[in-house]
């Protein structure tokens, strides 16, 4: 059904309400973008229109308002995309591909040279370590909760995992900063304060609850008759889990891991606090105990004194992050969608 035919299908009243309301609201949003001074009066006009309209025809007005709220997520996402991109344009124009494969010096604010190579490397290494921590432990945790645990254990572990998800990232960062960093320096004679390894490990712990809860949903959505079939053939519980449940939930579990990776990529405060945030590559490159910077901690540690091209370079880092995480998010959604289709139903 095309937009035009849909519009034909609406009655006059919803056309009036929707039409006038949309125009007023669009004007309000537009004025906030272009001339914030006018926003107040336009918003007032919109509110007055809605108030009158509710009194005249509640049913249609509410329908229109609900539709407007639904578009809010799309609009916000669009605004984020546009503003990140627009602000990143100057540095891309200036530096070109040097942003992605620069060489030493990578990041020099006085000479206006910007390359994201150390940040991307830092993000990649911490994310890899975090995934190595979060993926196996998270999937094992999900298997425990949904397949193995007796009821009493499930009722302890499941809320505990959710509580783990609630611990703010700055608290993890604080613990990493005061305790783990000190431990690394004292017991392992690490010469610098902070390392990629500790950051990756802590970020992995932080991504763990995401992996557990999403993977658990995936495992729980495998229909019970599939399990019953395996058990009727005399398989043990563990055989059922490994040869029926986990393969059936495989795509859901990989979606969970992808989401966990997304969390790890975007984790900011732990990396900012734990890492030394030097804009150089570790030497040698494979030294996971070395110090560098991640895309997120670059923004958090340098936004304060940034202006001009430097400011724009931070937005380039933001775009890089945003695109990566968005790709992971969309990817995991497509996988989940496929899994739901193959398993049938929306159980």
């Amino acid at each position: 059904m095309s937009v035009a035919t849909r519009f034909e299908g609406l009655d006059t009243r919803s056309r009036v309400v929707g039409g006038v309301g949309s125009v007023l609201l669009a004007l309000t949003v537009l004025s906030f973008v272009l001339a914030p001074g006018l926003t107040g009066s336009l918003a007032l006009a919109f509110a007055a229109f809605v108030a009158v309209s509710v009194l005249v025809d509640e049913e249609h007005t509410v329908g229109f308002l609900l539709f407007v709220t639904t578009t809010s997520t799309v609009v916000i996402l669009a605004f984020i995309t546009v503003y990140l991109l627009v602000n990143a344009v100057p540095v891309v124009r200036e530096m070109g591909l040097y942003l992605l494969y620069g060489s030493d010096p990578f990041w020099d604010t006085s000479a206006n040279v910007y390359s994201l190579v150390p940040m991307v490397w830092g993000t990649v290494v911490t994310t890899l370590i975090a995934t190595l921590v979060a993926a196996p432990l998270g999937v094992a945790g999900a298997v425990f909760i949904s397949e193995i645990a007796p009821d009493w254990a499930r009722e302890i572990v499941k809320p505990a995992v959710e509580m783990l998800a609630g611990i703010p990232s700055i608290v993890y960062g604080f613990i990493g900063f005061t305790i783990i960093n000190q431990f690394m320096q004292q017991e392992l004679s690490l010469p610098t304060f902070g390392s990629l390894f500790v950051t990756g490990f802590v970020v992995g712990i932080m991504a763990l609850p995401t992996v557990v809860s999403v993977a658990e949903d995936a495992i729980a959505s495998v229909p019970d008759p599939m399990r019953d079939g395996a058990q009727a053939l005399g398989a043990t519980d563990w055989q059922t889990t490994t040869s029926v449940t986990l393969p059936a939930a495989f795509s859901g579990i990989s979606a969970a891991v992808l989401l966990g990776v997304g969390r790890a990529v975007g984790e900011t405060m732990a990396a900012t606090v734990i890492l030394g945030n030097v804009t150089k590559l570790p030497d040698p490159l494979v030294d996971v105990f070395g110090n560098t910077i991640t895309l997120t901690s670059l923004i958090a540690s340098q936004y304060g004194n940034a202006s001009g091209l430097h400011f724009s370079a931070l937005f380039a880092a933001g775009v890089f992050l945003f695109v990566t995480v968005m790709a992971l998010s969309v990817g995991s959604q497509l996988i989940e969608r496929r899994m739901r289709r193959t398993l049938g139903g929306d159980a």
Partner: protein
Amino acid sequence: MSLGTSVDSAETLVGETSTTREYASGGLVVLSFLAFAVGLLGLFQYLPVDTSVAGLPVATLLGGSLTLVGAGTVALGVGSYTGALDSEPSHTGGLVSAGFLGLIWFVVGGLVGAQTLGLSTAWPVVALLTGLAGTGVALLAREDLGVTVSAGSFVLLSGVVVLSGLVGPGWSWDPESFSIVLTGLVGVPVIALFAGLVGAWTAARVYGGFGAQGRQTGAYVLVGTNAAGMLALLAAVVGFIVVRGFAPMTEGIRYGLFWGPVTWFNPPLLDSWVIVEGPIVWFYWPFVMEGYGLNTPIDGILPAIVGTVWLVVGAVAFAVPLGVGAAVFLTEYAEQGRFTFLVEISTNGLWSTPSIVYGLFGLAFLVPRLGNTPSLLSGQLVLGFMLLPLVVITSRESLKSVPDEYRDASAALGVSRWETIKSVVLPAAMPGVVTGVILGVGRIAGETAPILLVTTSSPFPSEVTNVIQGGFRFTGSFPFVAVPTVDLVQTSSALPYQLFAVIGAGLGENLDFAWGTALVLLLVVLCLYAVGIASRLYFRRKLNA
């Protein structure tokens, strides 16, 4: 007696109650976990491996128990192979186990080749050979022999290495391309942790009598340890912060009960004040009632607490109407199609957008338009954007779980769609929506990155941001009443930012202050989570009952 016979027959049906194999392997599982636990204590230097317990160094004890576990599992495997112990092994150890063991042996071979034998280029060959041997033995020999020999000899080797002092308290290793130096104080516990887990897994497999049952027992031991580890992690993080932060947080609390003036007023036509006296509870908690750097002996975090409250209130006021509205539209009005797909994609996209990206967006879009200064209002909006997808997702779930019968019954009475939603669907879905909002608030209350960019300025505020200015009062000019002005366009602190600011300023003398702040933040956030989780459990039970 008939009771006894029935028990006996049941036992013979299932098998002997406990065989030698089960006793021996059960003991080895326990011993492995002991080594694991001591390894943990040793790693964190609570029980350094060079200290002595009962006359023996911890390292020797660890080495001894690992040797015992290794030798024991191999012996049990051989016993099972020769038929001395009864078990039900499969003809192979299984591909996954063999691969896993091969990996372990690959690492062992690599380390020995490169470090002990000092082979600079040929170590991959050694590693590959040992790896292949480890895999081959586990894969090709019958399960009871293959798995126990491959895994058991790894544990045995680890034990012997530690016991003989090859890797002892005095040992140190400086890996070439890494900037750390591994000493025995860390190396021995790491070996104990790893070998302990492998030992527990192998011994549990023996305990289950090999075969499908054995694999299940082995896997359950590992998965169970992992779950216990997560509980321990939560307990450790929370416990640690409570222990360190409790004293600074509660320092200087004073309270008392007084008899004093409660209220006083001047009655008309009387030239004196009437004073009503009564008991007054007096309570003073400096850490949460004072600012930083005032003339008080104890620095407090009141400005941060008030800032967080304002941020959360604003974010909820922004996100909840939008989020619930969107959820209602998606479940009650919209048909599945391109539009809902787009909304779903962007909702999930917003959910996974990194918090620092929200901060950048706020810095570029909101801050210049809202007074061109970091402000509470920008922070509220940005946190509202972050809360929005959470509210949409959870509200949608709970709206979906309202049975269609409710809607049908209402529609059958001739009630319109919106009336049905308003008076039937939304009330039924309310508990789920509220729970979702509480959990979401718990998440945004702990967010640092966005407010760092758009709200905060002073790292150690002494004064609370004065949002409501002037009170409700009567005035002399039209319209004779003045309402308080609400000024949200000012900077403010917030709890997570306060913690970040202390770290940034250098902990030094502020370390206790930082632990106290961390504890308050953790308490606020975890209380929100606990309330959210508990209410969800409560309503779910009520729904199922």
